[in-house]
C-alpha cells in the first residue's frame, strides 16, 4: 500500500492503482466518461484531470496515471473545474442537445456532468455531426452524432467480448466509431457496447420510447437462461419488464450479459403467455378455473403410484423442484427426471463416481486464476457466452494459455495463441484417454495417484489408447497429443472446461470420467485456478441435480418414462416447463409417447407444442414473478425476488405443487423460504444458508471431492458411411433451450435453424450461402438453410437445436454424431 494525499485527506492505495482508482477507493469522486471498471485505462475524455503537486501543478488524467508514494493530488481546484467545464463545452459543441427524445436521458453521463458542472452556455460554435443513424438491426441503434469518442464500445467489444465489431475509423475531426467498411452493425448483439456507452449513441432498440429511465423500478434478479448465473437488473414499469439495466458492480461478470440475457427478456410479458388454466373437453382445450384444473390433476395423481411420472425443466427454482419431487412421492411414484435424462449424466453419473460429488469442483472465478485453460468444444463460448468473456479476458489480460479440443473451430480458437486441436467427431473420450495414458507413461502423475482407488484398473483400461492409435482415430497427431498432455500435467493451475446440455449427448458420464481422471492423476484438484468446470445448460441445472430431481432408487429416467407412456405402464405424465416434443431426441418417439399416455398435464408459460397435446394446461409464471433460489453451474446459489406481479391468473410452480400436495392430503410448506430452510438442512453444501444470508451476492456451496479413478469407456462410434456428413448438434450463441424463442432479441438475430458447412464441402457440392438443403438421416429429413463457414472441418456439419418450427429431432435421435446426407 502507498500513502498519498488526495484533497488534503491522508489515504492509502494499493501499488499499481491509478489516481482514479485510489480516489474511488477512498470515496472521492472524479468525473469520467471513458472509464469502465473492467476495461483498461484509456485516457480519452479528459474529464478526470487532476493536479499533482509533484508534477508542478500540471493537469494530468487521473485514469491513466499510476499513484506513487507521497503523491499530493487535488481533484477539484478552481483551475481543474475550469478545465473540466471546457472539456464539456467542447464535447457539447458537436453533441446534439436532443435529450428530450433521447432514451439515455436520466442515465446519461454527459447530461449528468453538464448539469453538475453547470455548463449553461458555450463559448464556441461549430456544426453538429451529420452522420447517418444505423437502424439496420432491430436491437442496437447507433447514432454517431451523439458520440463523444470515449472508445468504450470498441474496447469492450475487443477486451471483453472478443468480437471486435466496432473500432475508430478515419482520423482527426472525421473520426467516428464504426464497423468494417463503415457498414451496418452485424455482430453477436450482446449489447455490451450499449451497456457502457456514456451517452445515447448506442441504444437498445427494443426499449426505445418505452419509458423514461427515472420512471423505471429496478429489481435485481438472476438471468433465467443458461447455467452461468449472471446477475440482472430488470427495469420495470406498470407491471412489465421493459428492459435490462447495466450495473457494473453486479456479479462476477460486472454486469456484462450476452444477447439472450440482455435482449431476451420479452418472454416475461409476451402476449403469448398463458393466463388461464386450460382443460381438454371433447377434444378441445378450454379455459377453466384453477379449482377445476387442480382437482382434475389431483384426481389423476392421488394414489396413482408408479403409473405417474414427471419431467421438469431445470429452469424451475430449487424450491419448486424439491416440491415437485415431494408431489411425486406423495403420489407414490419415483419416476421423475429432467433435461432428457442424459444432459445431467456427466454430473449425476460421471462426477458422482469420480469425485464422489454430483458437482464440478471448480467455479467460474477459477478462470481468472488459471494459467492454462483446456476447453473441450469451442461451444463453451456458444452455450455460455459470459463464460466465454471470462476466457477471453483471462487469455488477453493475464496471458493464460488456451488449448481447445473440439470437433470444430469457433470464436475461442481465434484468441491470441489459442491452440485448437480439431478431432474427428465423437472421439473426445479416446483423445482424453490418450492424454491420460501419456501422463502415466511419462510419469507426470502426482505421487499419490498410484495409491488412489481404481488406479490399476485405469492403467489397464488405457492400454489401447496409445497416442499413435488415437492419432489414426481422432486425426490429432501423436506429437500434438504428447505436447498437450505434457503442458497440461506440468502447468500447476490448469483448468478443464466443458459444456453439457440437451444437444450434447456425447458429453456424458464417460466424458466427465475421462476429464476427471486427468485432473486426479495430475493433482489439479483443490488448487485455486485448477480443476474441472462443467458448464450445465439451464439456469438451475445444477440445482435440479442438487435437489435430486433425477431417478434414484429404481425410478425411471426420462427415456424410460417415455417408453412407459408408449407401453401404457405410465398413465399420467406431468410435464413442468419442458417441451420434450422439440428438445428431446427423436421427435416421432416423443410424439407417440405423448399421444399414447392417458393423461398429459403440462405447466408452462406458453402453449408449447407439448402443452398443446395436454389434457390439462396450468399457466405457470416466469422467474421475474416468483421468489426462490437458482443454483448456477458452479454451485453459486442466488436468491431471486419477484420484479412484477404474476401475469394474468398464472401461478408459480411452487404454488401449483403446493396446492396439489394439499389436495392429496399432504402438508405443503408455507413459503419458498420455509422450504429453503429444509433444503439448507438436507442438501450437502447448502448448510447454514437462508434467503437472508444469501443476500444479493449469493453464496457458493462447497464441493467435497473424494477422487476415484475409473476407466472411461468410449462408446464405439459407428463410422459415418461414405458420402455422408457427420451431423453435430449444439447450441446457437443466441439461444438457450426452447425458451429463448419467446425472447424477441434472440429471435431477431437468429430466427431459425441453419446448417453450418465447411467452405470446401460447399464448393464441392456447389452450395451457396442460404441455399435450402434437404438433410436426411436414418430417422427422417428436414430442410435447413446452409451457412458456409471456415470453422467447420471437411465432412462435418452443425445445426442448433432450439427451434419449434423446424425441430432438429426429426433427424436426430440422440446420437452424439449422426450420419446425414445433403441434397439441394
Amino acid at each position, binding site marked *: 500500500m502507498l500513502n498519498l494525499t488526495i484533497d488534503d485527506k491522508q489515504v492509502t492505495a494499493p501499488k499499481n492503482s491509478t489516481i482514479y482508482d485510489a480516489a474511488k477507493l477512498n470515496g472521492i469522486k472524479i468525473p469520467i466518461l471513458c472509464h469502465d471498471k473492467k476495461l483498461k485505462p484509456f485516457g480519452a475524455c479528459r474529464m478526470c484531470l487532476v493536479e499533482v503537486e509533484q508534477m508542478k501543478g500540471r493537469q494530468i488524467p487521473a485514469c491513466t496515471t499510476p499513484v506513487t508514494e507521497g503523491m499530493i493530488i487535488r481533484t477539484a481546484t478552481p483551475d481543474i473545474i475550469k478545465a473540466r467545464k471546457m472539456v464539456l463545452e467542447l464535447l457539447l459543441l458537436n453533441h446534439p442537445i436532443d435529450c428530450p427524445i433521447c432514451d439515455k436521458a436520466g442515465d446519461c453521463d454527459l447530461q449528468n456532468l453538464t448539469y453538475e458542472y453547470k455548463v449553461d452556455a458555450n463559448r464556441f460554435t461549430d456544426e453538429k455531426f451529420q452522420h447517418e443513424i444505423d437502424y439496420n438491426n432491430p436491437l442496437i441503434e447507433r447514432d454517431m452524432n451523439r458520440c463523444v469518442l470515449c472508445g468504450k464500445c470498441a474496447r469492450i467489444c475487443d477486451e471483453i467480448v472478443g468480437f*471486435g465489431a466496432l473500432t475508430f475509423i478515419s482520423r482527426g475531426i472525421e473520426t467516428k466509431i464504426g464497423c468494417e467498411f463503415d457498414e451496418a452493425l452485424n455482430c453477436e448483439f450482446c449489447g455490451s457496447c450499449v451497456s457502457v456507452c456514456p451517452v445515447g449513441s448506442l441504444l437498445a432498440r427494443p426499449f426505445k420510447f418505452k419509458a423514461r429511465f427515472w420512471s423505471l423500478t429496478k429489481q435485481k434478479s438472476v438471468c433465467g437462461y443458461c447455467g452461468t448465473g449472471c446477475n440482472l437488473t430488470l427495469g420495470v414499469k406498470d407491471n412489465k419488464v421493459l428492459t435490462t439495466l447495466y450495473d457494473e458492480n453486479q456479479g462476477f461478470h460486472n454486469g456484462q450479459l450476452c444477447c439472450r440475457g440482455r435482449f431476451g427478456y420479452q418472454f416475461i410479458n409476451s402476449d403469448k403467455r398463458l393466463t388461464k388454466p386450460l382443460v381438454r373437453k371433447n377434444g378441445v382445450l378450454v379455459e377453466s378455473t384453477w379449482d377445476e384444473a387442480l382437482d382434475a390433476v389431483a384426481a389423476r395423481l392421488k394414489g396413482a403410484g408408479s403409473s405417474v411420472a414427471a419431467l421438469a425443466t431445470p429452469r424451475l427454482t430449487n424450491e419448486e423442484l424439491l416440491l415437485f419431487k415431494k408431489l411425486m412421492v406423495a403420489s407414490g411414484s419415483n419416476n421423475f427426471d429432467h433435461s432428457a435424462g442424459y444432459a445431467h449424466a456427466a454430473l449425476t453419473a460421471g462426477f458422482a463416481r469420480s469425485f464422489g460429488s454430483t458437482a464440478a469442483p471448480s467455479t467460474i472465478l477459477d478462470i481468472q486464476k488459471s494459467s492454462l485453460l483446456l476447453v473441450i468444444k469451442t461451444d463453451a463460448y456458444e452455450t455460455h457466452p459470459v463464460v466465454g468473456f471470462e476466457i477471453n479476458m483471462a487469455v488477453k489480460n493475464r496471458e493464460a494459455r488456451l488449448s481447445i479440443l473440439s470437433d470444430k473451430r469457433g470464436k475461442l480458437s481465434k484468441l491470441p495463441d489459442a491452440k485448437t486441436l480439431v478431432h474427428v467427431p465423437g472421439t473426445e473420450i479416446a483423445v482424453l484417454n490418450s492424454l491420460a495414458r501419456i501422463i502415466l507413461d511419462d510419469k507426470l502423475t502426482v505421487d499419490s495417484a498410484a495409491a488412489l482407488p481404481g488406479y490399476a484398473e485405469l492403467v489397464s483400461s488405457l492400454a489401447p489408447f496409445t497416442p499413435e492409435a488415437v492419432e489414426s482415430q481422432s486425426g490429432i497427431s501423436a506429437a500434438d497429443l504428447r505436447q498437450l498432455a505434457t503442458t497440461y500435467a506440468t502447468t500447476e493451475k490448469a483448468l478443464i472446461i466443458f459444456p453439457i446440455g440437451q444437444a450434447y449427448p456425447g458429453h456424458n458420464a464417460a466424458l466427465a470420467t475421462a476429464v476427471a481422471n486427468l485432473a486426479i492423476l495430475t493433482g489439479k484438484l483443490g488448487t485455486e485456478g485448477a480443476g474441472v468446470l462443467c458448464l450445465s445448460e439451464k439456469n438451475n441445472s445444477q440445482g435440479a441435480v442438487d435437489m435430486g430431481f433425477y431417478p434414484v432408487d429404481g425410478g425411471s429416467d426420462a427415456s424410460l418414462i417415455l417408453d412407459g407412456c408408449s407401453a401404457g405402464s405410465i398413465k399420467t405424465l406431468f410435464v413442468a416447463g419442458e417441451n420434450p416434443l422439440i428438445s428431446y431426441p427423436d421427435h416421432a418417439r416423443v410424439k407417440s409417447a405423448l399421444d399414447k399416455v392417458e393423461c398429459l398435464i403440462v405447466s408452462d408459460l406458453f402453449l408449447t407444442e407439448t402443452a398443446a397435446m395436454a389434457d390439462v394446461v396450468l399457466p405457470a409464471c416466469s422467474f421475474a414473478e416468483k421468489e426462490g433460489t437458482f443454483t448456477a453451474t458452479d454451485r453459486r446459489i442466488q436468491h431471486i425476488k419477484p420484479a412484477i406481479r404474476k401475469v394474468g391468473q398464472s401461478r408459480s410452480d411452487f404454488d401449483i405443487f403446493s396446492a396439489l400436495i394439499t389436495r392429496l392430503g399432504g402438508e405443503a410448506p408455507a413459503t419458498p423460504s420455509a422450504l429453503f430452510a429444509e433444503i439448507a438442512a438436507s442438501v450437502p453444501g447448502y448448510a447454514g444458508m437462508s434467503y437472508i444470508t444469501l443476500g444479493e451476492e449469493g453464496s457458493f456451496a462447497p464441493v467435497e471431492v473424494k477422487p476415484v479413478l475409473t476407466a472411461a469407456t468410449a462408446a464405439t462410434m459407428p463410422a459415418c458411411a461414405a458420402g455422408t456428413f457427420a451431423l453435430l448438434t449444439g447450441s446457437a450463441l443466441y439461444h438457450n433451450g426452447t425458451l429463448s424463442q419467446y425472447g424477441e432479441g434472440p429471435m431477431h438475430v437468429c430466427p431459425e435453424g441453419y446448417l453450418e458447412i465447411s467452405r470446401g464441402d460447399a464448393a464441392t457440392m456447389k452450395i451457396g450461402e442460404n441455399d435450402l438443403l434437404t438433410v436426411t438421416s436414418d430417422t427422417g429429413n428436414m430442410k435447413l438453410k446452409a451457412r458456409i463457414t471456415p470453422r467447420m472441418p471437411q465432412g462435418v456439419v452443425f445445426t442448433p437445436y432450439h427451434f419449434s418450427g423446424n425441430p432438429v429431432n426429426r433427424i436426430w435421435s440422440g446420437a452424439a454424431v449422426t450420419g446425414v446426407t445433403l441434397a439441394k
Partner: protein
Amino acid sequence: MSEVVAQQAEEEEVVVDLAIADKVIDKYIDIPGNLMPVLQGVQDEYGYVPRVVAEHVAERLNVYPSQIYGVLTFYAQFHLKPRGRFIIRVCVGTACHVQGATRIVETFFDKLHIGHAETTPDLRYTFEKVACLGACGMAPLAMVNDATYGGMTVQKVDEIVTDYNQRPI
C-alpha cells in the same frame, strides 16, 4: 445485410487473385506487428486494398476486419478504391499557392474531368492536391508518379496530359 450493403458488395465483385495477397502475407506471417507491412505490401501489388483482400488479410492474420478498416482509413497512404496508372500530384503549399497553383489545379480538373482525390473511369489518372512536396524552389510544382515537373504553367499542363494520354496503361 442491409440493401445498401448488398448493393455495395455487388459492385465490389471485381475478380481479385488472392494468391498474390497470400504471397505477401506468407512473407510476414510470423513477424509480430505485421499488419502495416502486409497492408503496404498488398497495396503495392494491387495498387489499392480491395475489400476482399482486406477481409482475407483479417482472416489470415487473425485481426478483426473492423480494426483493419480503422488502420486503412487512419493512414492517408492506403486506398480502398482502384487508383489510376498515373498519379498526378499538384502542390498547393504556400510557395506554390503564391506562384498560382490554384490555376494549375483547375486546369487539370478541366482537362481530366475529375476533382481532388478522384480517378478517371479508365483508371488512367488519379488527381491529388497535396501540401508541400518539399521543392519550393521549383514552384509551382506537379508530379506524375515519380517524375517532377517544376515551374508549371497552364500550357505545361496541356503538354503533360497529351504526353501521358499516349502512354500505355
